[in-house]
């Protein structure tokens, strides 16, 4: 059961900030690769966004977001009060142009990102991420 006061505070923040990112670390110093990737995408979109570092209260915040959004890992990007997703969904929506639509901005014209491999079989073997709690 999530802390009631914290839940209300989180809901306030989500409703007050049209674009709000819950992340590990800060946009200038992300402390998790997934959070860093999400910040990199958002920074290309040219929108203002709020960012909350979840690390000081990771477990209580995890309980809150599990309760209000049925989502327990971070980062989490909220747009207009709705959870859009974590790093994978944000990157995918960026590539498809759906993120720009959700944010109400033009798709930025900078195809800097390399093409995503189409399937996991195409991915090179990777070592497991270190020191990432949960699934990021």
């Amino acid at each position, binding site marked *: 059961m999530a802390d009631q006061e914290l839940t209300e505070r989180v809901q306030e923040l989500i409703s007050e900030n049209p674009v709000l990112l819950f992340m590990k670390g800060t946009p200038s110093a992300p402390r998790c690769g997934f959070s860093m990737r999400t910040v990199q995408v958002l920074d290309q979109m040219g929108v203002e966004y709020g960012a909350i570092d979840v690390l000081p209260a990771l477990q209580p915040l995890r309980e809150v977001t599990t309760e209000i959004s049925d989502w327990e890992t971070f980062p989490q990007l909220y747009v207009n009060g709705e959870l859009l*997703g974590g790093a994978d*969904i944000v990157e995918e929506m960026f590539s498809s142009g759906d993120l720009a639509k959700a944010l109400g901005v033009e798709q930025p014209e900078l195809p800097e990102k390399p093409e995503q491999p189409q399937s*996991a079989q195409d991915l090179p073997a990777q070592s497991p991420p270190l020191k*990432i709690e949960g699934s990021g």
Partner: protein
Amino acid sequence: MAADLEELKGMIEAALPGSEAVVIDETGTGDHLRAEVRAPQFEGQTRINQHRMVKAAVRERFDDGTIHALTIRILD
């Protein structure tokens, strides 16, 4: 405890009748997995809801610590 990829595939396909799932061990360690799923239930759902549906199907294996990370890819 290593994850049973076939079991996870079965859990997803049972929760989403008519779906096809492929579960891959990305790191060889058995706990960072990738699921590629195609399901008729995804029609008209937002991406996050599609992910929620897949996660819900295997929640038991998250809760008991078998899986720590599952990357989900939704196939159209």
